[in-house]
């Protein structure tokens, strides 16, 4: 045996049960498992080869909370010492009192003064336990309660595409529409600006979501934004 043999090309779409490699030369990573001398995919995704490790990146499915992700959530309950938030995942997040604000909040304070039911909040995940208890914090740059604007939901796996390389896509949209936009890793997006511009932003984001696998997408989005806003965009497009 010794060396392994890769049976699928990198960046190919693989499905559960598909044999990715044989032999002992490769190691199973996320989204794969070993059965004897075979490495098999255990979810639908793209195959990534990192040295000797094979893993799959999911293309579909619910958002699963991960440490250090910046997400947007909605307050669904107020607890004894914090808030419970819905984060577009099978598991709710808990924002404890000490992580809610830089200022001191007394134990017996009225918590609705800080976050009311149905408020939307930008926050960062500090910890996820094995039982999927999610802890979040609001202390940090750009983490705060959201006022005004509108919320839309997008596919969580398309979020990297909406943000673009080093934020290129999202900053282009922001520049064109003058809207404030925050994209949570969990697929919740907050948009605030002039009503017409908000609509253009929503359309641009939906366009990215639908055509995320096409090449020359940045160019297309740029053309759409220029046409919709009537402004000329001076951004160099590198796809």
């Amino acid at each position, binding site marked *: 045996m010794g060396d392994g043999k890769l049976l699928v090309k990198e*960046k*190919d*779409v693989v*499905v*559960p*049960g*598909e*044999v990715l490699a044989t032999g002992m030369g490769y190691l199973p990573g996320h*989204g794969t*498992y070993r*059965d004897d001398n075979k490495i*098999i995919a*255990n*979810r*639908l*995704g*793209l195959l990534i080869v990192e040295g000797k490790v094979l893993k799959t990146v*999911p*293309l*579909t*499915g*619910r958002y699963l909370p991960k440490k250090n992700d910046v997400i947007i959530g909605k307050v669904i309950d107020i607890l004894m010492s914090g808030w419970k938030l819905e984060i577009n995942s*099978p*598991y*709710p997040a808990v924002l404890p009192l000490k992580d809610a604000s830089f200022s001191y909040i007394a134990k017996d304070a009225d918590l609705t003064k800080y976050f009311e039911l149905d408020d939307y909040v930008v926050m960062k995940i500090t910890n996820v336990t*094995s*039982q*999927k208890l999610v802890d979040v914090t609001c202390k940090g740059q750009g983490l705060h309660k959201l006022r005004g604007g509108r919320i839309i939901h997008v596919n969580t796996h398309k979020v*990297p*595409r909406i943000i673009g390389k080093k934020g290129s896509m999202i900053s282009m949209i922001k520049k064109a529409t003058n809207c404030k936009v925050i994209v949570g890793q969990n697929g919740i997006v907050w948009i605030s600006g002039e009503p017409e511009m908000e609509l253009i932003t929503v359309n641009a984001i939906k366009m990215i979501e639908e055509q*995320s*696998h096409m090449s020359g997408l940045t160019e297309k989005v740029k053309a759409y934004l220029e046409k919709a806003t009537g402004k000329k965009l001076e951004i160099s497009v590198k796809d």
Partner: protein
Amino acid sequence: MMSSEYNKRLDRRGFDETRLIEAKAGVIKKADGSAMFRIGKTTAYAAVYGPRELHPKHLQNPKTGILRCNYNMMPFSAEERVRPGPSRRSKEISMVTEKALLPVVNLEDYPNAVVDVFIELTETDAGSRCAGICAASIALADAGITMKDMVSAVSVGVINHQIVVDLDGEEEHLTNLDVADIPIAMVPSTEEITLLQMDGKASKEELLKAIEIVKPVLRRITETQRKALKEKYKGQGGL
């Protein structure tokens, strides 16, 4: 027992030939994952929702997620109107479908959560539980659920000692011959059989022979299921 032999099938298929199979992933937009599976004149639609929070809370299991299957024949799906709502038959099929899928789904990844599978049959002409299992298996993969492999299912019949793959409605209702209908579901990578039922009479030898004959057929069905998934995600490489 009749002495006449069943040496030619009513629709002139080969003895190990299935009816025409068609499969498609992602047919229901609002679901997390969905699929259509058609075999001859039997069509099943499956929709997967979740993993999502499980209520009421006492059903939650901290060690693992749970799978809930629901099989339903639409009122217009058969010759005679099917009374809407759960029946003794549909409850049984929901239960065996769940047990057929359970061995492949990695529910430990989703503690306290639930994965819901709804199977709707729009037209039926024998083999509906097998079509439902095939559709559900594609839909689970489409929903990004982690699973060891797909599950493929088909029925196999014994008509006057002749083993016949994928009975259709006409063959199932032959009255002048001895007909046994045996639905089988298998995990292709391990050849583990996850569903085995029998309606009618067949000898032990015939049953064992039927299982052997059906294995290559099930592998071909698995290929169709995989192709349906790859078709949906075709070209989705890169970020």
